[in-house]
C-alpha cells in the first residue's frame, strides 16, 4: 500500500485536478469519432488520473475510487464488450464489427455506425483503464514501506 505524499502542495493540486482530468477524459472518449481522441486516449487519461491519485493521495484513499481488485476484471470486461459488439453484428446478419447491422432503434445507417463506434470506444476505454491500473498496482505490490 502506497503512503500518501508528504507534500501538501502535491496533495492539494492532485485532489483538485483529478476530477477535472476524469471529466476531460470522458469528453475525449465520447468525442473520439468527431475529433482527436478516442477510447484509447481517454482510457489512458482515466488510468493516469487513477494512478496519480494512488501516488499522491496514498493507496488507502485511492482504493475508495477504484479498488485494486477491479483492474484485471475490467480489462477483461472491456475486451469482451469490444468482441460482443462485433459478434452481435454477425448474429444479425452482417460482417464482424459491421455497425450497420446492430439492433438499435435508429433508421439512419450513419447514426447506427456512429453509435456502434461509440460502444467500441467505451469497450477500449474500460479495457485500457483496468489494464493500466492493474499493471501499476502489480508493480508497486510488496513495497510495504514505499515512501
Amino acid at each position, binding site marked *: 500500500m502506497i503512503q500518501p*505524499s508528504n*507534500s501538501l*502542495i*502535491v496533495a492539494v*493540486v*492532485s485532489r*483538485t*485536478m483529478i476530477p*477535472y482530468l476524469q471529466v*476531460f477524459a470522458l469528453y475525449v472518449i465520447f468525442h473520439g469519432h468527431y475529433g482527436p481522441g478516442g477510447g484509447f486516449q481517454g482510457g489512458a487519461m482515466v488510468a493516469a488520473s487513477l494512478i496519480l491519485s494512488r501516488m499522491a493521495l496514498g493507496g488507502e484513499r485511492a482504493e475508495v475510487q477504484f479498488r485494486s481488485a477491479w483492474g484485471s476484471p475490467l480489462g477483461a470486461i472491456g475486451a469482451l464488450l469490444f468482441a460482443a459488439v462485433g459478434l452481435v453484428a454477425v448474429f444479425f446478419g452482417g460482417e464482424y464489427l459491421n455497425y450497420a447491422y446492430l439492433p438499435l432503434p435508429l433508421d439512419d445507417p450513419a447514426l447506427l455506425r456512429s453509435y456502434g463506434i461509440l460502444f467500441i470506444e467505451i469497450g477500449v476505454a474500460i479495457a485500457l483503464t483496468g489494464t493500466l491500473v492493474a499493471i501499476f498496482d502489480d508493480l508497486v505490490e510488496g513495497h510495504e514501506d514505499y*515512501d
Partner: protein
Amino acid sequence: MNVQDLIAFFFILCGAFFMLMGSIGLLRLPDFYSRTHATGKVDTLGIMLSLLGLAIYEGLTLNSLKLLVVMIFVLAVNPVGTHALAKAAMEYGLRPWFKDDTPPVKQESEGV
C-alpha cells in the same frame, strides 16, 4: 498576413525562445536543483506562450478554448511536478552545489 497572425507568431517565437533557454540551462547548469529550476520554470512559460500564440492564431473557436484549458492545466501542474521532484531529491539527501565546490560541468569536460 494580418495583425492577428503577427501577434500569434510573436508569442510562438517567445515561447520557442524560452524553451531554448530552458534547454541550454539543462545542459549548462551545475547540479540537479538549478537544472530543475531552469527546466521547470522556463518550460512552463515556454509552453504557455506557445499555446497562447496558437490560440490567438486559431481565433475564437472551440479549439482555442481547449488550448486555454491546457494552458491553465500546465500553469497549475508543471510547477507542482518540479516541486515534487526537488522535494524528493532533498529528502533523498542530494546535496546542492555551492560556489566553492568544483563545478561538475568542468570535471566532466576535463575527464573527456
